[in-house]
């Protein structure tokens, strides 16, 4: 119970609720902080405000009916969650996917990753007091939303993948506007670096702040850019390649110390790597069907399965137990933000309240993903 937490208060320490409606928490997250002056003594992230019970819903729905749920967990990287789910079920049921569909999925998932990172970039800098980059990022991000809207029909909660392929084929205009976008974003890097990366106020707010090293990441199960900022080149796209990621040439950016600045740099470089993947995929995009004929109801064989993909925030996985019927017996989504958020209980104590904003921002959590 939360009130057990309220032990006798000494003269120096007091409690502060940050959230659940604080602008820097990016969703309904409550940070219960025990403070000694401006310093944090204890931090307890309180989650669950957005718990919708996706895992329970799965147990009474057909595999197909769960499709829209998958993209509603992490609404900023919905397509990656969607891709992971269909790929998991395809692997269970042994459904072959036409090559064109795989390319389309990768192009869209990588565009989604860029849009997620762009939103993180804008809001993180805004949390630190810089409003201008936010407007630039949203301008760029709007391009991606338009591109994906054209092909999937939605701006955020994409339910674009289908078992055995995707819902619609790409057209020439999609390819053309994506290529235009790649050039546009590349021309922006200089602006971003001039506006933010070289800004001395930003550097002071991010350097040596909220250090998460390999050991801490291992204890808390942190993955994604946080882990890579600590110097571990662990990326599911490389470690256990899924879809067609093994065919592309891309690097895994890593940091050295694992502070907020490293996490910032890693994400910025990751956007460029995603652009490279999209570019290669557009060049190699094969002709052919975009969707295979699959049975009306998918019935994976009995047993349990795990399928991991790299979401914008780290290692995402679906653990599915099948009882041989067309309904999942148990579906668990291992979401990256869960461990990434929990590490705050270790990182925040000893830091200043003002740094909390910087640390929380640099970790890049999406609360509905934590709550599911």
């Amino acid at each position, binding site marked *: 119970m939360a009130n057990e937490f309220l032990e006798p208060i000494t003269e120096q320490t007091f409690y502060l609720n940050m959230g659940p409606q604080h602008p820097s928490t990016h969703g309904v997250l409550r940070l219960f902080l025990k403070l000694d002056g401006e310093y944090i003594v204890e931090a307890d992230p309180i989650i669950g405000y957005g718990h919708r019970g996706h895992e329970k819903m799965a147990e*009474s729905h057909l595999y197909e009916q769960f499709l829209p749920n998958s993209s509603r967990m992490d609404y900023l990287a919905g397509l990656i969650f969607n891709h992971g789910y269909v790929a998991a079920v395809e692997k269970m049921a042994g459904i072959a996917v036409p090559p064109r569909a795989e390319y389309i999925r990768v192009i869209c998932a990588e565009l989604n990753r860029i849009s997620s990172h762009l939103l993180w970039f804008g809001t993180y800098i805004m949390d630190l007091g810089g409003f201008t980059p936010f407007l630039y990022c949203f301008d760029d991000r709007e391009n991606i939303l338009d591109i994906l809207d054209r092909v999937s029909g939605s701006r955020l909660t994409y339910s674009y993948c289908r078992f055995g392929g995707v819902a619609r084929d790409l057209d020439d205009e999609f390819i053309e506007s994506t290529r235009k976008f790649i050039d546009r974003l590349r021309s922006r890097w200089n602006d971003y670096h001039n506006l933010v990366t070289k800004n001395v106020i930003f550097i002071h707010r991010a350097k040596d702040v909220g250090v998460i090293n390999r050991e801490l990441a291992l*204890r808390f199960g942190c993955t994604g850019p946080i882990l890579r900022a600590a110097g571990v080149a662990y990326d599911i796209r490389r470690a256990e390649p899924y879809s067609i990621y093994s065919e592309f040439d891309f690097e895994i950016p890593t940091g050295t110390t694992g502070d907020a600045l490293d996490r910032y740099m890693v994400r910025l470089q990751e956007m460029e790597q995603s652009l490279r993947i999209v570019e290669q995929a557009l060049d190699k995009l094969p002709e052919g069907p975009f969707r295979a004929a699959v049975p009306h109801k998918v019935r994976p064989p009995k047993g*349990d399965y*795990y399928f991991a993909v790299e979401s914008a925030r780290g290692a995402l*996985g679906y*653990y599915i*137990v099948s*009882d041989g019927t067309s309904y999942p017996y*148990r579906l668990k989504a291992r979401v990256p933000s869960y461990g990434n958020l929990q590490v705050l209980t270790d990182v925040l104590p000893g830091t200043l309240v003002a740094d909390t904003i910087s640390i929380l921002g640099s970790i890049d959590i999406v609360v509905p993903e934590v709550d599911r």
Partner: protein
Amino acid sequence: MSLEDLKEELSKVVEPANIRSRQHEKDGFFLEVEAKAKEVEALAKAALEADCFLESITAADFTEGVQIIYQFNSFSSVSRTLVRVQLARDESVPTISSIYDAALWYEREVFDLYGIRFDNHPDLRRILLPEDADFHPLLKDYGKVHAFRSTEEIYGE
């Protein structure tokens, strides 16, 4: 550390007969360990010794009781290992939160959704549901589910 090393570490704490290789290509796992509740702590220590991180703790409800599923993996070489602990109704399991901090929240989640108690957990309170909830929603006797089966029906030959 390679998969063989991990297998060796694990076989020090459980019967080697209970460790089974799986096909990663097919179902995503390399190893599967069938363990008893009292072996969990030693298994977690062995996994940490092999430089693994705790990927997740979850559970599934079967007619004979809740099954706890631990998942370990490594940053350096993929070696996803599944540890199954089948509990009887009302049986509890020791916490591994003193070994892996990640378990603090994962165990709270399993407690919240399944009502399983983790012995010696320092802070076992609800995490996703409101603190005054009086149900554990992922149990199969709660709400709408399609089926309630035994482990034999799903994992049996």
